[in-house]
């Protein structure tokens, strides 16, 4: 069959859709990067973040998703019975086979007549679920759909990823634009087969292509997706108040922001990796929740995720008058970040079960 000539443009929902509720979660423990450097680099190493969040022994993607989803419900001020999809994106689902989403749905009181499923696309599993949720609401197949990006990321002891592999994420309830605190102006995704980072079945820790994860992977996909979305929607960085990019460390999102024409001030509120690390499928999602916590009505927010393997989902949101009163209906992202208990490498090893094998 011949390749169609029509250029593929940004997706705009057939009927207007927006975020009606959102909620973040970050566990309380923090492992300073200097602790990793102390154990593995003789204390001398340039750390990619200041510290990272670490889940408690009784936490996993399911428990963290439940709390984020409860926060989202509190902001949406809807009953869980009105939700028609519960989707959890993660690369650390507690089970290899058995959905995280069914536990989350049951715990928050969602009805049985829902779509439920777990999404996997490295660090963009959550935003992939969000695109699907937008589509579901736009298609009229449900009034509300819940999309969660959450991770308790894995890093092999001594690997560069151990500085950053963190835990956290956010939940979003997508619904009709007229009830929204932020309306979806459009989305665009850019996907190729680029093996920059992977974890084979039954493996405990991922492998990565080191510097190959940079230009051909992270930067290529984010810039392509971000540029195309802005072009299609006819906006420039100057028309946008805030930008959030996937944040595997501190430098990558700073550099990609510059490449797309954004100032450090525009990315500052959503740049959480220096203090919580890389929350993988949660990273872009929780960056957005931090921005929503402090944005004003009418602000435009660009979000571009990146998932290894590889792809980026770009979103442009515009906040509404409803945002302000909902910001305080649940704990804010910075409340969780401020709740901080520092641990040493020994406690980290225990909490993450790294003695087990």
């Amino acid at each position, binding site marked *: 069959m011949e390749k169609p000539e029509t250029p593929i443009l940004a997706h705009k929902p057939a009927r207007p859709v927006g975020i009606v509720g959102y909620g973040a979660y970050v566990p*309380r423990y923090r492992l300073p990067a200097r602790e990793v450097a102390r154990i593995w680099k003789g204390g001398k190493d340039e750390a990619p973040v200041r510290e990272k969040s670490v889940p*408690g*022994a*009784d*936490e*996993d993607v*399911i*428990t963290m998703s*439940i*709390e984020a989803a409860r926060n989202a419900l509190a902001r949406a001020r809807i009953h869980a019975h009105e939700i028609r999809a519960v989707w959890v994106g993660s690369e650390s689902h*507690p*089970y290899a086979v*058995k959905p995280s989403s069914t*536990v989350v749905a*049951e*715990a*928050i*009181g969602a009805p049985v007549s829902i779509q439920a499923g777990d999404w996997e696309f490295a660090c963009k599993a959550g935003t992939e679920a969000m695109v699907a949720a937008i589509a579901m609401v736009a298609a009229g197949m449900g009034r509300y759909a819940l999309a969660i990006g959450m991770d308790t990321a894995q890093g092999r002891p001594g690997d560069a990823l151990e500085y950053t592999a963190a835990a956290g994420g956010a939940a979003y309830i997508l619904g009709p634009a007229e009830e929204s605190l932020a309306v979806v102006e459009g989305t665009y995704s850019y996907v190729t087969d680029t093996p920059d980072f992977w974890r084979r079945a039954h493996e405990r820790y991922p492998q990565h292509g080191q510097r190959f994860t940079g230009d051909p992977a992270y930067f290529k996909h984010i810039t392509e997706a971000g540029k195309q979305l802005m072009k299609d929607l006819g906006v420039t960085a100057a028309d946008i108040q805030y930008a959030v990019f996937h944040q595997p460390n501190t430098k990558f999102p700073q550099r990609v922001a510059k490449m797309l024409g954004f100032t450090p001030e525009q990315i500052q509120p959503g740049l959480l990796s220096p203090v919580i690390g890389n929350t993988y499928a949660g990273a872009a999602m929780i960056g957005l929740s931090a921005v929503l916590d402090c944005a004003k009505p009418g602000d435009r927010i660009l979000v571009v995720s990146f998932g290894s393997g590889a792809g980026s989902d770009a979103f442009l949101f515009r906040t509404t008058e409803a945002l302000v009163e909902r910001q*305080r209906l*649940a*704990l*804010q992202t*910075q*409340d*969780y970040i*401020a*709740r901080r*208990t520092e641990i040493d490498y020994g406690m980290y090893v225990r909490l993450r*079960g790294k003695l087990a094998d």
Partner: protein
Amino acid sequence: MEIPRHWRLKKQRYSLQGEICPHCEGKIFPPRDVCPHCGNDARTTFTFSGRGKVYSFTHVTEAPAGFEETAPYTVALVQLEEGPVVTAQLTDVEADEVEIGMPVEMVTRKIRSDGNERGIIIYGYKFRPVLDGAR
């Protein structure tokens, strides 16, 4: 493996679903077949707010099988704001920060595995000091 037993109790465990007595309106948790307040059958579900106060607590160092990984841990009697008292672990708190009367809120956490690491993960209620944040 005791899958049916845990499956049957998931509503109670995940979200503190108890009962309200249709006869005397007493709130009941954990659910019981007979209302402890008036002696009638109690069957109407009621979901508790999850807010309460520590009535008493203890720090368990000798943990039973299934709980070794998280020991030592704190178990408390938590008086829910609706009245009933529930036995639950406290989480996200240091042992020396706990005191009788401390306000706590319910969170859903991993309780333990059914059997070993190959068994299902059992999730359920724990309580943590109330997180108020900037609200």
